[in-house]
């Protein structure tokens, strides 16, 4: 089974990072086994037993928990002996230098297995009613605890449990806030799709640049290199956020002009364009949120959690190179570094692309955060409550402190007229 790692946790699994530097030696140095730090689990002998194991070893067991000061506390029904409980905890106690006397015993009204059965029954009954939040065999109170959103739900759940013969005194029902799944730019199934969220095409991740209508065709714009082949149309399929999360294809690449040799500013041996931009048409039935960009809680704060939307109310000029001056603050929202903001440092720059023959003409450099996967991101200027769309991000420096975008005028020069809001 394949596992997906982000760089923040990759060290746990890819534990070898070997750098070999050697003078006058052309052959590469191979990593030695001694250099590979092993990833080991913690010893199990001093761990707490599972509740099921505790129950198996301890007659009258009603539950177990640690108090806030770490005191091991066991519920036992009246008449049950504490010795089996101490034995079940012996490894844990020994590992922490604690004596058997440190175990605190509370009188249980119900056995743990009985509570487990009632929890199962209560789950079936409670979750059939809208407004149920959770059902827990709460080992700290020797009761089944049920969370509901409001008093109306509370009454319905209590009646349902009575019909299912779960004793009222064995259950605590209380009000609880609903549990909300937090959606981020990387994992949200965004429908209609907004700019800034993650898209997936075979083998790669990028970001939606902006939604656009070309003629009557509903589309989104992303980077040209966010297609199967940079330059030229191969009908690249797109999923959002991942094919493995939602297997319904949302769009197909329909426009990605070829890169060409020659022309003004194009260096010898290079393949040039004025924009690293492509267009994908939404498949029939897929939604687009024309004019909307996913918004996080703030610029340059690292958050990827979506808290709302920006609304595009204008586009930058159609002039090649754009109409924003050095020093102007622009923003972007992308799947990797979220919402970042900074000043334009260079305009109309002809730039090569590391490791390729491609060259992009008349691009804009911005001093703001960027990371792999942000390609395709919308670049915009905040103007009051709405934003002006100014381009499509496609690259940056290796340090992640400067991004490069193709101005909107360059994009429409090569993809044709686009309606963005």
């Amino acid at each position, binding site marked *: *089974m*394949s*596992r*997906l*790692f*982000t*760089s*923040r946790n*990759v*060290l746990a*699994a*890819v*534990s*070898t*990072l*070997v*750098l*070999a*530097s050697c*003078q006058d030696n052309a052959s*590469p*140095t191979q*990593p030695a086994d001694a250099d*590979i730090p*092993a990833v080991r689990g913690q010893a199990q002998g001093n761990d707490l037993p599972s509740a099921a194991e505790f129950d198996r070893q301890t007659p009258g067991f009603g539950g177990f928990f640690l108090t806030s000061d770490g005191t091991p506390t066991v519920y036992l029904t009246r008449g049950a002996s504490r010795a089996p409980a101490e034995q079940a905890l012996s490894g844990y106690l020994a590992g922490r230098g604690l004596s058997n006397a440190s175990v605190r015993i509370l009188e249980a009204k119900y056995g743990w297995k009985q509570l487990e059965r009632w929890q199962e029954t209560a789950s079936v009954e409670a979750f059939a009613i809208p407004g149920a939040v959770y059902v827990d065999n709460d080992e700290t109170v020797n009761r089944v605890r049920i969370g509901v959103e409001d008093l109306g739900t509370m009454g319905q759940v209590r009646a349902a449990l009575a019909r299912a013969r779960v004793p009222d005194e064995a259950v605590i029902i209380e009000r609880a806030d609903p549990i909300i799944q937090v959606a981020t730019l990387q994992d949200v199934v965004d429908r209609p799709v907004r700019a800034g969220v993650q898209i997936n095409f075979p083998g*790669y*991740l*990028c970001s939606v640049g902006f939604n656009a209508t070309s003629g009557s065709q509903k589309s989104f714009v992303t*980077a040209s*290199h*966010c297609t199967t082949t*940079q330059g030229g149309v191969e009908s690249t399929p797109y999923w959002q956020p991942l094919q493995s999360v939602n297997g319904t294809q949302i769009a197909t690449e329909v426009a990605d002009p070829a890169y060409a040799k020659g022309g003004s500013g194009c260096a010898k041996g290079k393949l040039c364009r004025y924009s*690293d931009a492509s267009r994908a048409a939404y498949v029939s039935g897929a939604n687009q949120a024309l004019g909307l960009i996913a918004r996080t809680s703030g610029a340059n704060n690292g958050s990827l959690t979506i808290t709302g939307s920006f609304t595009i109310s204008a586009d930058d000029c159609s002039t090649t190179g754009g109409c924003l001056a050095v020093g102007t603050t622009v923003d972007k929202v*992308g799947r*990797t*570094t979220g919402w970042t903001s900074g000043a334009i440092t260079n305009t109309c720059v002809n*730039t*090569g*692309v*590391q*490791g*390729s023959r491609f060259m992009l003409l008349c691009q804009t450099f911005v001093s703001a*955060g*960027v*990371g*792999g*996967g942000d*390609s*395709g*991101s919308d670049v915009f200027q905040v103007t009051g409550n709405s934003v002006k769309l100014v381009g499509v*991000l*496609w*690259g*940056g*420096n*290796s*340090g992640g*402190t400067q*991004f*490069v975008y193709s101005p909107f005028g360059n994009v429409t020069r090569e993809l044709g007229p686009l309606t963005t809001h």
Partner: protein
Amino acid sequence: MPLVFSVTNAGKVVITLQLMGRVPSADFQVSDAQGRLVWSRLRGQTMMGALRLYPLEAGKSLSFRHTWNQQADTGRLVPPGDYTIRGVLLTDDPKGLASPPAPLRVGT
């Protein structure tokens, strides 16, 4: 001075790395004894910002080779002395995945 930077999957299952760009890329960075960066292979270069999903089989390595001509980013030869060098795999994290620094000495 030949350099080799390797990233090895020391686990038992295939993992999928998220690597910046269309092809896996790594930087090499040399710092002087005071910790000042004197040379970076990728300084001033523009990288594509796509994220490649790169499966790495258990026990397999991803290796990068480069040669340092002992010049600083200024183009001048660095003075003799002690330096450190590290490799940085470009990933979805702007900081990348860096090796521990390795010491090296440039002689007279």
